[in-house]
Structures are given as structure tokens and as C-alpha cells.
């Protein structure tokens, strides 16, 4: 799903309001939230003369996809028995030292290159001190002074006017990318007034991506994060699944009047999906506008997004302004990266990371893939967006095109309208599709030869798509009748044979 841009909202609102100069601002006394044509969101205050400009900046933590942790050899895995993936270093036992994982550095370099960053050939590690139960060392190893990558950009697209037909490309600047350790997990047991700590996640490698506050609303933030997610997944540097905590987004939100300095910002945390990100940002913008409009003030605080209530609330464990006492990590020398020119002659190949070597091997990024699809198959740009938004769908589309005489421009309709909606209805991924690319190609060929009608083709697809559920039900019934003594694989084969007769 491609996000709508802010411009559309403003235009629709203007049509509805039919503003005449000097007249009252809103019908029915509603406070309207609108966007100007440049995409900056504005809201007319009570007087109708003082618009607000929201400013949104994101801090994103992406868990690096690697076998072992950033500074130790314990495994990285999502669900595992508590404290089973923890080494002595992760538990911060005395006498242990950090040893940098090469794969994590490569992941950060790849990501930096994909986001047009300048890669720092020399970067440094620092300690960031604070006390919390899930941080056994009392500090986090990060890169505060000189991070691994700086000054990049991320381009993303929005469609205006709620239609997919008009898309606009926007860019958000990336301030820096740094390597750092993840902390453990705290489970709060309020009933017994204690916290249970699991250090499995402690020490896992993270890439922190800091974006400049170039965005103005929830839609933009959501679109940017979605594109970043696709890029990370394409690179393989992170699986970026928000639900599993592999991609965490914190939003910094403030509002100000045009021409005035930026307002006080709040930090919004606990955002668990891209949809909630848009909601959280928009809610916070609205909350700040209303608060300031009523004569109140905004405090520089951290707020949590409550997905059930759809609002932001001040966070519980507020410590006030933290002093992290940054200091250089004394156990790690500077991280030196090389390129083709500076490659040392007689160094162990395994100890050298060559930026140019990595650049040459970067896969096609989503934007490039989309362009290629449009160019090769003559589909519309917005089709390419929808295709790439589903894991495995571009390959499915290309397979069908290969096996059918129907023109790609027509095939895409069947893929996006019929197949995709069936999959969504039955909550299936492309990989789980009961309709294979071979079958669909076959069907479309019959259609092209006019041997079947379009309606018939749609019906066949429906039956095939729905069949899987019916089949599973039948298997369940057989199991019940035979009291679990039947071989499910055999049962499935027999049933499928019967159904295809």
C-alpha cells in the first residue's frame, strides 16, 4: 500500500470549505488539519490566521541480520529459552572483552552505501552510560563521536489525491548510521513488583539510523519507513520485521509557526507497526497543536503510543534529562575500512573490509527493480510499487508472463486485482498461494484464445483459491473419524485426487 501525500488532504479540504476572505475559518466550528501544496501540514488556529508547521524526525534501530552478536559469539535468534543465548561478555562478567563481528560491519557498510552515505574510513566506538536492569555493563557500546556512515538520503514515494495515478517522490536526509549494541529485554511483573530480565537480546548488533527532521506528517513517515524496510530486506542487512522488534522506530515531533524557530519536541516510542507509526505521529501533531492553541506548553518529554486508545501518553520511567557521560571505548581500536585505492598489500584478507568490493556487489535496490519492471513490461509505476510491496509477487508476475501469451500489461491486472485480493482475503502470502504461476498462466492462455470467458476464469481462480481451506477442513474431519490414526499426508493425497476428478 503506498501512502497518500499530504497535498491531497489540503486540496480536498479547500474544496469543501470554500473559504472566502474574511469569513470564519471552519464550518461547524471544526478545527481543520490541512496541508499546503508543498506538502507541509498546516492547521489554522482559532483565529484562522496562524498556521502550524509540523516537523517529524525519525530515529530507527534496525537489528542486523547475523548469526552471532556484535561483540560476542553467542547466537542471534528471536524466540529462545531465556538467557540461553548469552555469553559471559553479554552478561558483563569481569574479565571479558568485546570482539567485533565482521559481518555486522559489512551490513552497516552495505546499508550506508544503499542510502547514499559517505562511509567513514575511520570510525570510533564509545561508551554511553546509564543504569537499567537490562544493561548489565551499565553502558552501551555505540558510535557517538565518529559513526561508520554519514550524510545520506532516502527517497520514497507518496501518491497524491488518494488515487494511485499521481505519485510524488520525496527525500529525507540521513544524518548518520552507527553500529551499537542492543540491550536485554525487561518483562515487567507489576503484581510482584519486580522485573524479569532476559539477556538473549543483549549485545545483538544494531544499526541506528538517524534521519533529519525533513518530514511533516504520519503518511510521510510511514512511506519512508516502508521504503527503508524494503531496502534493508533487499540488502539482507536486516530482516526489518517490526513485529519481531527487528525494526524499531522512534518519532521526534514538534510544531511551530512559519518563520519562527522549531518548537519543543517530544519523542514518541512504542510504535509497533508502520500503520501505528502514521497514527502516532498524526495524533502527536494534533495533540501539540491543540495544547498550544489552548495556551498550554509542550515539554521535552518521552511519550509512548498506546495502540488500543490510539493516543500518546507520557512514559512511566521518566528520568529527566540524561547525562550519558560518553567516553571512548578503551578496549577497541578505531575501525579502519579500505577501498580499492587504499587496500593494504600484505594484510590478511579476512581482516580487511573493502568498501568498493561491497559496493560492486550491492543487489538492485527496490527503486531500481521498479524501474526495470516498468521498462521491461510496460506496466505503470504505481503497479510496480504494489508488486514490490508483496514478498515474492514480482517473481510470480514474471513467471506468469514467461509462460503466457497474454501481454504483461493485461497480466498485471490479474495479478494485482484478482490474485492479490484473493490472497489478502485468505490471509495468505504469495509463497502460500494455492494458485501457482503455472496454473494462472494456463488460465490466462485459455482466456487469450477465447476458449473461456473472463468471468469463468475468475470463478476458477476463486474455486482454486478457496479449495485449500475446504481441503484442510476435510482432512480435519477424516482425522476425527479415524481418531487420529490416519496418515495426514496420505489423506491429503487421496482427497486431492478425488477433488481433481
Amino acid at each position, binding site marked *: 500500500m503506498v501512502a497518500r501525500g499530504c497535498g491531497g488532504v489540503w486540496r480536498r479540504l479547500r474544496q469543501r470549505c470554500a473559504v472566502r476572505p474574511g469569513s470564519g475559518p471552519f464550518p461547524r466550528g471544526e478545527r481543520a488539519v490541512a496541508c499546503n501544496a508543498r506538502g507541509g501540514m498546516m492547521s489554522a488556529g482559532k483565529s484562522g490566521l496562524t498556521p502550524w508547521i509540523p516537523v517529524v524526525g525519525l530515529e530507527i534501530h534496525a537489528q542486523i541480520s547475523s548469526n552471532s552478536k556484535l561483540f560476542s559469539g553467542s547466537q542471534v535468534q528471536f524466540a529462545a529459552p531465556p538467557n540461553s543465548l548469552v555469553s559471559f561478555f553479554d552478561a558483563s562478567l569481569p574479565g571479558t572483552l568485546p570482539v567485533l563481528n565482521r559481518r555486522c560491519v559489512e551490513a552497516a557498510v552495505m546499508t550506508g552505501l544503499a542510502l547514499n552515505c559517505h562511509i567513514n574510513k575511520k570510525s570510533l566506538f564509545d561508551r554511553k552510560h546509564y543504569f537499567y*536492569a537490562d544493561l548489565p555493563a551499565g553502558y552501551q557500546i555505540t558510535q557517538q563521536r565518529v559513526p561508520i556512515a554519514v550524510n545520506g538520503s532516502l527517497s520514497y514515494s507518496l501518491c497524491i489525491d488518494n488515487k494511485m495515478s499521481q505519485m510524488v517522490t520525496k527525500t529525507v536526509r540521513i544524518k548518520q548510521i552507527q553500529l551499537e549494541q542492543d540491550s536485554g529485554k525487561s518483562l515487567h511483573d507489576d503484581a510482584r513488583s519486580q522485573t524479569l530480565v532476559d539477556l538473549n537480546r543483549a549485545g545483538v548488533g544494531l544499526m541506528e539510523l538517524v534521519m533529519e527532521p525533513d518530514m511533516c506528517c504520519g503518511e510521510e513517515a510511514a512511506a519512508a519507513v516502508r521504503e527503508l524496510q524494503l531496502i534493508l530486506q533487499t540488502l539482507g542487512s536486516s530482516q526489518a520485521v517490526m513485529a519481531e522488534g527487528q525494526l524499531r522506530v522512534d518519532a521526534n515531533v514538534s510544531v511551530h509557526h512559519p518563520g519562527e524557530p522549531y518548537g519543543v519536541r517530544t519523542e514518541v516510542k512504542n510504535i509497533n507497526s508502520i500503520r501505528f507509526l502514521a497514527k502516532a505521529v498524526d495524533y502527536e501533531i494534533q495533540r501539540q497543536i491543540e495544547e498550544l492553541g489552548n495556551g498550554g506548553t509542550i515539554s521535552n518529554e518521552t511519550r509512548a503510543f498506546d495502540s488500543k486508545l490510539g493516543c500518546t501518553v507520557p512514559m512511566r520511567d521518566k528520568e529527566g534529562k540524561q547525562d550519558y557521560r560518553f567516553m571512548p571505548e578503551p578496549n577497541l581500536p578505531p575501525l579502519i575500512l579500505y577501498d580499492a585505492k587504499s587496500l593494504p598489500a600484505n594484510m590478511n584478507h*579476512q581482516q580487511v573490509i573493502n568498501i568498493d568490493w561491497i559496493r560492486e556487489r550491492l543487489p538492485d535496490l527496490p527503486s531500481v527493480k521498479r524501474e526495470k519492471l516498468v521498462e521491461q513490461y510496460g506496466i505503470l509505476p504505481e503497479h510496480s510499487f504494489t508488486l514490490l510491496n508483496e514478498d515474492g509477487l514480482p517473481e510470480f508476475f514474471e513467471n506468469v508472463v514467461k509462460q503466457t501469451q497474454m501481454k504483461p500489461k493485461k497480466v498485471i491486472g490479474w495479478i494485482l486485482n484478482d490474485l492479490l485480493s484473493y490472497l489478502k482475503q485468505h490471509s495468505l502470502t504469495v509463497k502460500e498461494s494455492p494458485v501457482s504461476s503455472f496454473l494462472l498462466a494456463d488460465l490466462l492462455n485459455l482466456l487469450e484464445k477465447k476458449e473461456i470467458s473472463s468471468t469463468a476464469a475468475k470463478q476458477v481462480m476463486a474455486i482454486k483459491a478457496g479449495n485449500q481451506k475446504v481441503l484442510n477442513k476435510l482432512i480435519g474431519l477424516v482425522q476425527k473419524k479415524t481418531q487420529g490414526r490416519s496418515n495426514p499426508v496420505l489423506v491429503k493425497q487421496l482427497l486431492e485426487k478425488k477433488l481433481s476428478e
Partner: protein
Amino acid sequence: MRVLSLGRWLRAGRVPPREPASRPSGHRHSGHRPQGPPQELPQGPSQVPPQKVSVEVLEHLEHLALVDFRDSEGVERLQKAIQFADQLHEVNTDGVEPMDSVLEDRCLYLREDDVTEGNCTKELLENARETVEEYFVAPPGNIPLVKLEGQKTFLQGSK
């Protein structure tokens, strides 16, 4: 923890006994008591006038590092330590790049991405005073430092 034992040492106002010669290697410094600062401060060419550490800074330091200065001797030790470190200002560092690390000439070793550690839950939990089903147990959140009445009076009195 190193900082807490520093506090106790400061309170006692004495130099702790030296470590036995046969200290096992590979132990991080945190385990043992630190050697004290030199008993006499070397006289530099231009001695920096001793700065008084304000109550606010002391309270801030105590909160940040969870250290307890406790009495006037402790605070004086801190003052002397700062004075000692201030001698660094006598060196002219114009145009000199700050040193990142004493290891800056060394090579940062890169490890292969293999799983070589972990699976020692039992050993790790042995050190914990309290556990629940293989989890470590901690208080519900950070417990704010309690300001003792007597202590507050002392700090204010030391101004």
C-alpha cells in the same frame, strides 16, 4: 562494584593495603580496590587554583555514578583528584589531534560470524541472588536515590 568500594575507601580516608604479588592475570580492574592518588601533589610550574566543587555538581555526580562521597574527607579527596587532573591544562595542545585511544596504532581484530558461545544459562544464573524460571530478577524500575537528611545538611555545609 568499583565505584562503591571507592566510596568506602574515601570514607575511611586511608590508603588500602596493596594487592598480593600473585594476582591472577586476566581480571578486570573492577574486582579490586584501586590504589590511591599520590599522597602529595607535584608542584607544577603554574599551579591551577583549586576549584571548589559545588553541591549541585556533587549531587549530580552521586546520582550519575551511584557513588557516595559521604563526608568531608571524601569530598576533599575528590577536589584533590580534580586538581591533579587539571595539570593537563598546562600542556599546550594547539594544533594537536586528540588521541582516540592508546590502541590507535593497533589493528581492530574482526571476528568471523560464527556461533561459538552461549548455552550456559545455569552458570550465569548461579551468580544471581534471585531468579525466577531462568530469568534474572530486578526491581520494578530504577529506584530514585533517597536524599538522607544528614547528608544533605553536610553537603550544604561544605559550601
